[in-house]
């Protein structure tokens, strides 16, 4: 097949780097508020009816939202196989925590109201809390580690290695900078969840969610700025040594990379990328401001922009690096050395261009059908309500 030659390998890699960002941002914008609502559940909703209101605002949509993560995982596997392999196995126990939390979540939604017993329901409330808070925090911790570099190595055969013992490796992931990024991620998504509840829920649930959202929005902004300063002045960056062939084979051993310098360098080369952090701060600030004024839809929109800004900041700052190796910088994964073959990228792009608009269209239709606030009457009206 020569069809794929129509788009250069370099361009396809750039597009897929963008698409990976698109999927992760899509995940954070949609399933992000589900996780935020989970984390808010025990605090924003006190009585059983309130909790059911909160749960039922996301009840019909969380499942579709979660597919952003599943598709993100699948797309990284298809388009960036070494990245998929190294990150998922390198963060092994952290990934297990995320999985365990994500397994609890669907079950919590579906099974909670199957029994009247308050003890049963409280138990599932905590399962939903874990299902929301743990992944939100852990994804941030993973990003915090990626920014510092992760201790892995690729052999000449491209076998990923991660020396060290299981527990020590997990503890090493929980370093102060990574925890800070984890808190940014958690508070950002809680703010997003609060904006969603403000938009969708009736009564005290929305009121309490707004109060919490204002605080978490503030923490997210401060944390984001602090992490930015720390990253700029306290954490060494990674860079290529010598010439890079952006259309070369996907093999890190063919070019030299080293650790050193500052991630700020990216902002000297491409000053326009400063738009991303600015958007992140303004978006979250507007969301918090909106929440303090009792706004729903507008806060949600602002919060989405904030998420777009924050996640883009990470990607644009590190470009072309995706997952640097602190143990062996020569094994670092970048946009130019960690992709699938030219043909696979091309085929997958074709499939995405056909199906993504369809997905967006029917998802929008579903949200339109479900439009409107959820209150106590909704719970009694629908026997399928959670």
């Amino acid at each position: 097949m020569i069809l794929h030659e129509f788009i250069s390998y370099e361009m396809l890699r750039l597009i897929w780097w963008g698409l990976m960002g698109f999927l992760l941002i899509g995940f954070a914008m949609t399933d992000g508020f589900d996780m935020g609502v989970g984390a808010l559940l025990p605090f924003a909703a006190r009585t059983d009816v309130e909790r059911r209101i909160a749960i039922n605002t996301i009840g019909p949509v969380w499942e579709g939202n979660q597919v952003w993560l599943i598709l993100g995982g699948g797309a990284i596997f298809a388009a960036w196989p070494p990245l998929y392999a190294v990150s998922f196995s390198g963060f092994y126990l952290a990934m297990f925590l995320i999985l365990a939390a994500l397994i609890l979540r669907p079950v919590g939604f579906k099974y909670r109201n199957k029994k009247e017993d308050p003890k049963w329901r409280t138990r599932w409330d905590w399962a939903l809390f874990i299902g929301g808070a743990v992944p939100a925090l852990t994804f941030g911790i993973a990003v915090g580690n990626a920014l510092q570099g992760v201790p892995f190595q690729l052999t000449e055969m491209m076998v990923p290695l991660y020396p060290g013992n299981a527990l020590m490796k997990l503890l090493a992931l929980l370093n102060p900078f990574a925890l800070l990024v984890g808190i940014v991620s958690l508070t950002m998504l809680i703010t997003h969840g609060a904006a969603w509840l403000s938009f969708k829920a009736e009564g005290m649930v929305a009121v309490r969610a707004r109060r919490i959202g204002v605080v978490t929005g503030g923490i997210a902004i401060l944390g984001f700025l602090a992490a930015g300063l720390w990253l700029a002045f306290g954490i060494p960056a990674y860079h290529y040594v010598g010439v890079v062939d952006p259309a070369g084979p996907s093999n890190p051993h063919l070019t030299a990379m080293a650790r050193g310098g500052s991630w700020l360098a990216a902002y000297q080369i491409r000053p326009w990328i400063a738009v991303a952090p600015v958007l992140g701060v303004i978006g979250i600030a507007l969301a918090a401001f909106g929440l303090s004024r009792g706004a729903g839809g507008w806060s949600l929109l602002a919060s989405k922009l904030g998420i777009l800004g924050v996640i883009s900041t990470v990607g644009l700052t590190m470009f072309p690096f995706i997952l640097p190796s602190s143990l062996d910088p020569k094994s670092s994964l970048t946009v130019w050395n960690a992709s699938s073959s030219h043909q696979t990228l091309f085929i997958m792009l074709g499939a995405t261009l056909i199906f993504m608009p369809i997905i967006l269209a029917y998802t929008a239709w579903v949200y339109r059908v479900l439009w409107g606030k959820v209150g106590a009457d909704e719970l009694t009206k629908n026997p399928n309500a959670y």
Partner: protein
Amino acid sequence: MEFDVVDLSRLQFAVTAMYHFIFVPLTLGLSLLVAIMETVYVMTRRPVWRQMTKFWGTLFGINFVLGVATGITMEFQFGMNWSYYSVYVGDVFGAPLALEGLMAFFLEATFVGLWFFGWDRLSARAHCIVAWCVAIGSNFSALWILIANGWMQNPVGAVFNPDTMRMEIESFFEVIFNPVAQAKFVHTVSAGYVAASIFVIGVSSWFLIKGRHTELARRSITVACSFGLASVMAVIVLGDESGYETTHAQRMKLAAMEGMWETQAAPASFTLFGLPDQEARETRYAVHVPYVMGLIGTRSLTEEIAGIEDLVKESEERVRSGIIAWDALQTIRTQRADTPPGVRETFEANGGNLGYGMLLMRYVEDPRDATEAQIAQAAADTIPTVWPLFWSFRIMVGAGFLMLGFLAYMFWRTNFRQGRYPNWVLRGAVLMIPVPWIAIEAGWFVAEFGRQPWTVDGLLPTFLSASRLSVADLLITLAGFVTLYTVLLVIEVRLMLAAIRKGPVQDAEETDAWNKAHQARLSGVLATDIKPAE
């Protein structure tokens, strides 16, 4: 006890996959049955069909969440536990997984929420379309997953690239239209339909025994036994097709399933019963049925089916060729553009056997240093352990024919005996519920255990595929998964039983009103249901 990371990784994958596949068959089949029932409701507007739709839909929902929850583990686990596998074949194998999300899972997951929450927000017709979207989404999911799995059994359309040290796609068309994958897809989804049909018949039979919800139960049996009978025939026909494909794509797996150590003169006989002995390389007390194996495997009277002994000899040749490929690859890798002329040609000639050369890495670091004894050992390693394969295959086939008989009987009673079922048959139907699951798990065992010692047949040995994690990592996650899954499975079964005991929600007023109107329409002709046989 000594633990080994590779064995623990395999155990964890087997456990999580087999758990996952407790829920998947019911999702595949019930989604379709529910959509069929809802379609009948939309066409007739008879309330009992909506009650059926809602009742089986409730059970579908309880089951569906666990299928989704355990499915995320499957997708993440390739990267977590099989990182070299992911690097080595991700260029080919990742694509169908991503396409599954893009084309199927998004559809299924987006509409399943609307199905449960949209009863009052959508017209009956639109709601029915939503049900079909869920059913189509789940079944398309299975298609992509089985294309991925089919490629592991019969890796077509890919080639090794020495620059990136991995397999890369050559023909996406071949990967999708892999005959093994296509046969597997129909075989597997039909098995899901059979499981759901037998589940529906079993639960409905229980209602009939108890004399509850008889109108709903009878209609459910009518739908399920026709659907189930058609499906079980598809399972058997496509199972035969899978066997035929396996004869060519995975000869060692076929020989091991049959406990066939020596090549027989064509047409080979089928071993009905026997005790395979791996050490002695023979199957004791074998009871043969002449000609049958040759006919199933080759569909001819003259073509031979190779026995294990001959295949091992072939493997040994391939191991030797693999060493040559490995040697050429090292030259290409270190010299790159300065590779002497002829080396790339040598690699191309022997590259197909590279995986066989890699089998030696269990014994020596560099396959070129292997001794004659090690080469013989590596060739012998290509034999999977025979007895579990031999037996699980027979369990699967036996269960399949049992279900065929059962569904045919139910179909006959339903359509030609006015739906009168003897009480012992109804009791038997309840006991039949686990049978499809036994067959399905046994079938997956044959497919995956029979592929050993490879993760991708002939390309990549299992022991190299696993992530280089520590035993502690594996023990923590294995214990975690088993605990979490077991707790959830117990909760699920209890909730299912509670929902069945509670039964469908019947709106007596609406039903009466409809019945009256219906009787008026039939102007005096009675449309009552036939009483169950006591």
